[in-house]
């Protein structure tokens, strides 16, 4: 029930945002995230944006995971070569 889905704000009109969820557009009420702007990523739950997502933190997490993946792939290649 606590599922919230990330999407990108494409327009805002009187406290209601249009949010794009990878091609599907839906409205979200901005009462809980009044500072949201067009272009922001927000988490949407029950028709409300409940948080602005931090893009820099998302990139950082992704970078850490990518490093893990690359390290694993390198190790695998070396193991095969031996």
């Amino acid at each position, binding site marked *: 029930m*606590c599922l919230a889905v990330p999407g990108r704000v494409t327009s805002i009109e009187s406290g209601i945002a249009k949010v794009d969820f990878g091609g599907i557009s839906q409205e979200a*009420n901005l009462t809980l995230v009044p500072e949201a702007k067009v272009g922001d990523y927000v988490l949407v739950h*029950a028709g409300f944006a*409940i948080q602005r997502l931090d893009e820099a933190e*998302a990139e950082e997490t992704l970078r850490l995971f990518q490093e893990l993946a*690359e390290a694993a792939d390198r190790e695998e290649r070396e193991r095969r070569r031996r």
Partner: protein
Amino acid sequence: MTDPVMEVESFRSESAARVLLGRIERLLKRAGATTDKPVALMEVCGTHTVAISRFGLRSLLPGSLRLLSGPGCPVCVTPLIEIDRSIAAAETPGTIVATFGDMMRVPGSRSSLESARTDGADIRIVYSPMDSLQMARENPGREIVFLGVGFETTSPTIAATILAAEREGLGNFSILPFFKTVPEALDMLAAIPDRPLEGFICPGHASVIIGADAYEPVACNRDMPCVVVGFEPLDILSGIEALLQQVAAIRTGQGHARVEVRYKRAVTSTGNIAAQELLREVFQPCDAEWRGIGVIPGSGHDLSERYRRFDARERLSLDVAQPIEQPGCVCGEIMLGRKLPTDCPLFGEACTPRRPVGPCMVSTEGSCAAFYKYER
């Protein structure tokens, strides 16, 4: 360039998962965990329960780690008497009950909302609580009762709906409040003598609202590791890694529990302040009953004095008889971390998602339903 927020594939890389699994295995060894004496962690949120089952994480993890499902499905912990009361509201002439779809099939003492609807009660499923205000506008002669189920993820959206109804002067909208709060439940679980678990995978989206600091009392006073975790496979594995680092340190006398966030793209230490203010304005804390568990002090939200007139219990007479629990269902013990769904004698036999006996089998996020669907 990959989109750091929407690109879920990057959070599902198999190579990265292998590295994390290797680290998890080493940490379990360091903690001295074995298959007979495993480390048990509890995921408190139903969305985590589903993600763990769906991605098959349990089968990838070593046998010296046990993942337990806590009381994190708000539908599953709604007491039977409240289901009966919701049905009574729906059967009151002139009312429309509006609800999230998850509530429809939960068995009450005698029937469910779904069967009440088949028998003619006007019950409508909504996606957002705001949809019920539209219903109130379109049906001025009828009372619209919204079923207020949820944790801190959901309760602010309902608080905002009540404020909107107040601003608009809608006189025919009310709610039945069954809200629950997460930190109080975790504190109760952490305080169980001989507690069967050593760390919490804290809910991602309730934490968005309340902030990670809300778990400080549980971590510090109960020495219980708390890590806030996202919902992609790598998020979950990385959260488990963080928890095991703490568990290994505690078991070897080299550290104490603390709160950590491994879902930083969404969760801050202070949470969503605007939403918290709204909760404080519209609600006040109350003791709440959790189905299968009992009363947990201070773990619910009631309407505050100022908004009491939006309480359906004040507007309709909804007296219901003492409820009858189904014998044999062990949902309560599952949610306390003492049993797995497969330990229930009714699981998969007398109790299935088509004919659920207990609430954990009804909601898609219930631990029994997740086990039935993905891990049978």
